[in-house]
């Protein structure tokens, strides 16, 4: 089936779903299995959205998912609504490359998950928000998110090992804003979470602070290289570290 065929099928599903929603809205429809019809309509919207995605008609796919979300939120089924928000956010981040909208949908999903006591799913969404906020240079927002997630994971026996990573990312965001801020933040994190003191991440941060104080870009690069030789830096960390490196006076180079 080609793209136009998929689009046609999606349109049919959408029309059917609209009918079911209208039918459930009527008095008699509401009396006789209205709830069931609405659920069917939601499923149809989701299937239509998938068809539109296969046909690469992103705006229509988002439209279908939004309609499904509206119905699910009215029904009080926030977990499924959150899942659809994540799907929309993924379309925005990877296909339409509209990061601001992706952030908005991830935030909404996180909000719904929190309301449903799904903290780990909420944190996953928040981390995405933090990730993209930092990339869009909204550092204060990113810092707040990383700190919030780190604090929620810190006391959890299963998640406490991830806390140092979030504190590290928050520290890097602080570092980009202001070196003194970063120092104070690091001290605060060490007090809050003693395990952070022994981490490779903290050792790297201290070396970077020292190099930055001395305006020594070679020492900075050397510290980053040493860290990278053990565990490869991902794209986000590379970007953030490069931004910090560029604040060293007279340095126009990049991380090797």
């Amino acid at each position, binding site marked *: 089936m080609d793209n136009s065929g998929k689009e046609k099928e999606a349109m049919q599903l959408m029309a059917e779903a609209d009918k079911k929603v209208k039918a459930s809205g009527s008095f008699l429809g509401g009396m006789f299995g209205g709830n069931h019809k609405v659920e069917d309509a939601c499923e149809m919207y989701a299937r239509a959205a998938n068809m539109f995605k296969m046909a690469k008609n992103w705006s229509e796919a988002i439209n279908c998912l939004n309609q499904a979300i509206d119905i699910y939120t009215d029904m009080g089924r926030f977990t499924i609504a959150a899942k659809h928000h994540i799907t929309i956010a993924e379309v925005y981040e990877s296909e339409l490359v509209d990061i601001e909208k992706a952030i908005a949908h991830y935030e909404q999903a996180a909000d719904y998950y929190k309301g449903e*006591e799904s903290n*780990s799913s909420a944190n996953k969404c928040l981390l995405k928000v933090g990730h993209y906020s930092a990339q869009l240079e909204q550092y204060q927002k990113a810092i707040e998110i990383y700190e919030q997630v780190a604090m929620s994971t810190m006391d959890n026996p*299963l998640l406490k090992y991830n806390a140092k*990573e979030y504190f590290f990312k928050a520290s890097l965001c602080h570092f980009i804003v202001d070196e003194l801020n970063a120092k104070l933040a690091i001290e605060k994190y060490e007090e809050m979470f003693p395990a952070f003191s022994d981490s490779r991440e903290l050792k790297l941060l201290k070396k970077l602070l020292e190099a930055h104080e001395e305006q020594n870009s070679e020492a900075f690069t050397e510290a980053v290289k040493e860290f990278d030789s*053990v565990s490869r830096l991902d794209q986000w960390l590379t970007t953030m570290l490069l931004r910090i490196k560029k604040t060293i006076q007279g340095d126009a180079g990049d991380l090797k």
Partner: protein
Amino acid sequence: MSSDFETYEQDFGTITAEVTNKIGKIPKLSGEEKTQLVLNVDKQLEEVRELLEQMDLEVREIPIQSRAMYNSRLKSYKQEVEKLEKDFKRSRIAYSDEVRNELLGDDAISSESQRAHLLDNTERLERSSRRLEAGYQIAVETEQVGQEILANLHTDREKIQRARERLRETDANLGKSSRILTGMLRR
């Protein structure tokens, strides 16, 4: 004749042994002691040279048929004396390892074998370092994988807890429904 040659040979052996011993001591001494010993060795080497001349004269008087053997012995003695003279010259300007060790507080003898040993150890250390680094990398990777697994476990735990809550609610609702239906049947 040959008995005289052998007497000279014995004297030669005794003196050269003494000279060798003294040459070994020279680098370890300094000042007056060293000067005295150098003069002493010089005198003994002179004696050795005279002995060689005597032996040379003796060999000339030996019949031709047995002269070749004595000639070769004399030749080897001359080579030995040359070596002793070289060693003597070296010993006068040599620095003793013991003097160095006294200064540096090290009693190890620096030598080619020791250097080879050091290189071998260095190589072994480097290999061990590389292995340790690789091990450290694996440990860090393992830690990251572990973190992901734990996060997934936590997510699953939440899902199970939510499912459990829903089951309890459903159970309660079913209980209510059952009671209502029982009431309806009674009527």
